[in-house]
């Protein structure tokens, strides 16, 4: 194949009647190219904005200072919250505590103190043992809460004058004798009133006795006297 033949072949191919590719194809390709170009522009704009922001950020010392301080504050708060979590962790883990135990802890404000599980258990045991005595002593009071005041007075067995005045102190011997006489009289009246069912009269009589004999150190009300007497009887 000579050079001339090659040129002839090229000429033939160049003048080939092959029609150009369709307009539809052109539109598709150009459309895709434009979409791609707009994407590239958008991306470039976004990148430029970010770069500009970073540049401004780095050039502005005040903004940098605020940013650093905010970062430090955030770190400090993070550390503190972490420490607080660790600080409260033993309390959260003390799952052995019963309802009573947790109530005792709250009463003692022990939730604010970091204590181990063993300490919690010991504290709850100690609290339980110390509560044992008052619970027995207050047992009648729990029962009396179910009764009305009048029922207590109706069943009342009043103490004697000597018993009432046992703890009282008098400056003179004659005073004790006078007080004993008036108390005896008053107790007789009160007993009569109670027997008759006149409980209010009994209370008034007791109030008068108390006002007349301040040195006798009597309980504040007849009901209180009745409760005290009942407790003494139950202890016996």
């Amino acid at each position, binding site marked *: *194949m*000579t050079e*001339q*033949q*090659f*040129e*002839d*072949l*090229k*000429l*033939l*191919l160049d*003048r*080939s*009647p*092959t029609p*150009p*590719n*369709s307009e539809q*194809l*052109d539109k*598709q*390709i*150009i459309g*895709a*190219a*434009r979409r*791609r*170009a*707009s994407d*590239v*522009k958008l991306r*470039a704009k976004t990148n430029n904005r970010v770069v500009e922001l970073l540049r401004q950020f780095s050039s502005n010392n005040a903004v940098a200072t605020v940013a650093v301080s905010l970062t430090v504050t955030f770190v400090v708060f993070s550390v503190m919250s972490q420490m607080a979590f660790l600080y409260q962790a033993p309390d959260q883990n003390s799952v052995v505590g019963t309802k009573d135990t947790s109530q005792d802890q709250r009463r003692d404000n022990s939730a604010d103190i970091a204590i181990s599980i063993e300490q919690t258990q010991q504290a709850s045991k100690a609290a339980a043992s110390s509560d044992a005595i008052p619970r027995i002593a207050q047992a009648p009071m729990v029962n009396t809460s179910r009764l009305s005041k009048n029922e207590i007075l109706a069943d009342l067995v009043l103490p004697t004058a000597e018993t009432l005045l046992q703890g009282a102190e008098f400056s003179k011997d004659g005073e004790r004798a006078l007080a004993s006489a008036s108390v005896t009289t008053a107790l007789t009246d009160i007993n009569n009133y109670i027997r008759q069912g006149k409980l209010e009269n009994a209370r008034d009589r007791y109030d008068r006795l108390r006002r007349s004999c301040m040195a006798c150190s009597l309980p504040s009300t007849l009901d209180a006297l009745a409760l005290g007497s009942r407790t003494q009887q139950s202890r016996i």
Partner: protein
Amino acid sequence: MRRWIYQTMSDEALMAAYCRGQPLAFECLYNRHKQKLFNFLNRQCHNRAISEELTHDTWIAVIQNTSSYQAKAKFTTWVFSIAHNRLVDYWRKHGATNRPLVEQLKEQHAVTEDRLSESIELEELMAKLQMLPTEQIETLLLKIEGFTYMEIASITKAKQETVKSRLRYANNSLRLSMEVKV
């Protein structure tokens, strides 16, 4: 930027402009090379529809891979290498053919017979062209398009020596056919 300025720019400069988001640069590039690329594919495919499909795929690949284009490489080399890959895929599925090329040459010869030199005996050339392997036809077509050996080697992903030998075999076959005729 105005369209006429783009038309004065090189392919590589246009591609760089398109990478920066200038759609007119691509339009200029497309208009500059669309016909050559279409002809290259159309001469090696069974019909026009397939050629258009391969042309579409090639240009879309160009659009999508703008970031991978390196300005060091010649733009046409890059585009034709993409087209070559599409063509090879097509050949694997449907088989290669030289018939479209021969038919085009025949049609054109009928129109412009008087302008050609007497040295070429086209009828015999057509017959011989049909016998050539597709790789040799492709290499010949790329050479006619003006690519150098190195560029053809780059497009077809072959060694430069292989390209030379393919062209030599093609020339010898065609010459032999004409010598026999003479």
